């Protein structure tokens, strides 16, 4: 090994980075070559100057500001989820995309269906509630001492298509027993819409024999003729025989009887 080669390896030799064989060759050379020996000792001295060089110590500020910075960064940093390495999964991801689109569409349709179902349900509920409310109001007002209030109560039933028996019975009661003829007449008019009910039919026939007010009698006859209720014939004939019956009413009854036969 030449002196230049020694020079080129002296650092690694001192640092102990060389292979043992190479180190031995250099050691032998150094021991036999004065200039290389000097070079070796000087390099060692230089390196010990490096290691003697005091390591500069930062002040406590560095650690403090580091800790502050770290706290700040911890708060700022969003929860990072490392991206999945998506290698050789292109067909898989297409399937995934397709699946998510399918789910999206299904969700949309299902949502729409649910929505319309819900709103239909809601409307039905609302209608039901409204009916209930009207029925309740009608029942509450029908016994009111004021005739006009009673008429109003009867009129509430106009909007009902299928009133329960409770309502019908209340109306019939008004028709047969109310002291005010206007209330009775309104009740008859209200009941004329529900002639499908057997209860209503029989009570109308019944009322025909009780009622004294001619205008109400005429109204009932007209209703019964309209629905071709044959059972009304007998009470009508009885009515005709009544001597106190006004002439115009007699005419109406006769016409009704003629229409029914």
């Amino acid at each position, binding site marked *: 090994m030449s002196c230049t080669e020694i*020079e080129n*390896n002296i650092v690694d030799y001192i640092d102990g980075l060389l292979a043992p064989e190479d180190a031995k060759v250099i050691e032998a050379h150094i021991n036999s070559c004065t200039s290389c020996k000097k070079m070796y000792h000087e390099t060692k001295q*230089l390196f010990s100057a490096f290691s003697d060089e005091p390591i500069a110590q930062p002040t406590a500020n560095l650690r403090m500001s580091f800790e502050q910075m770290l706290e700040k*960064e911890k708060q700022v940093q969003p929860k990072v989820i*490392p991206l999945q390495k998506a290698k050789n999964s292109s067909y898989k991801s297409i399937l995934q995309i397709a699946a998510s689109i399918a789910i999206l569409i299904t969700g949309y349709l299902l949502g729409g269906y649910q929505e319309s179902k819900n709103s239909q349900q809601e409307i039905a509920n609302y209608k039901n509630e409204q009916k209930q409310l009207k029925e309740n109001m009608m029942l509450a007002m029908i016994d009111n001492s004021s005739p006009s209030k009673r008429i109003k109560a009867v009129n509430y039933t106009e909007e009902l298509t299928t009133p329960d028996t409770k309502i019908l019975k209340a109306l019939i009661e008004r028709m047969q027993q109310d002291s005010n003829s206007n209330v009775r007449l309104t009740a008859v008019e209200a009941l004329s819409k529900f002639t499908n009910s057997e209860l209503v039919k029989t009570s109308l026939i019944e009322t025909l024999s009780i009622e004294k007010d001619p205008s109400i009698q005429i109204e009932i006859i007209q209703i019964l003729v309209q629905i071709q209720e044959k059972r009304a014939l007998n009470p009508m004939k009885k009515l005709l025989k009544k001597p106190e019956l006004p002439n115009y009413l007699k005419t109406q009854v006769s016409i009704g009887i003629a229409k029914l036969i």
Partner: protein
Amino acid sequence: LNQLSDEELMEIVAGGNLDAMTQIFERYHIRLYNFFFQKIRDVAVCEDLTQNVFLKVIKYKHSYKGGKFVSWIFKIARNLFYDYYQEQKKSQPFEEIEAITGELDDETMERQEEVSHLMKTLNCLNEKDRELIVMNRIDGVKYEQIAEIIDSNAVAVKTKIHRIVKKLRTNYFETLTS
């Protein structure tokens, strides 16, 4: 945490657990501080720069691609130093001139007195050589990692270090005897 290698710690940091940064700080803050201190003899500036290295480690944690951590962190430190150096050049052209003409005021003279013979000798090297020898002899960075930091290869770094040592040795003993 202290059982883990630098690289493993950095993986944890990159995964979002910043607590591992404390361990990295413990292992590197003195080395980094000295890396700066050999170039800039200003405690406050060096502390700032050291602090910035750790901040950058956090900010760029996702760009750490699993190489030797020591190379990566010193690369960050080196870039920060060059940024600082460029800024100083722009903002203080007057000092620069003063340094070139060698007109030192009393204060600078006094400070020079405190500086060791080795440090004075280091000033005979150019900036790049001084950085290399400081990294190798003071910060204890190996050839391979220096190569990664300066984008070179280990053989070239080894050759350079030997050349620098030769120059330094000559200067050191010439000025020592005189």
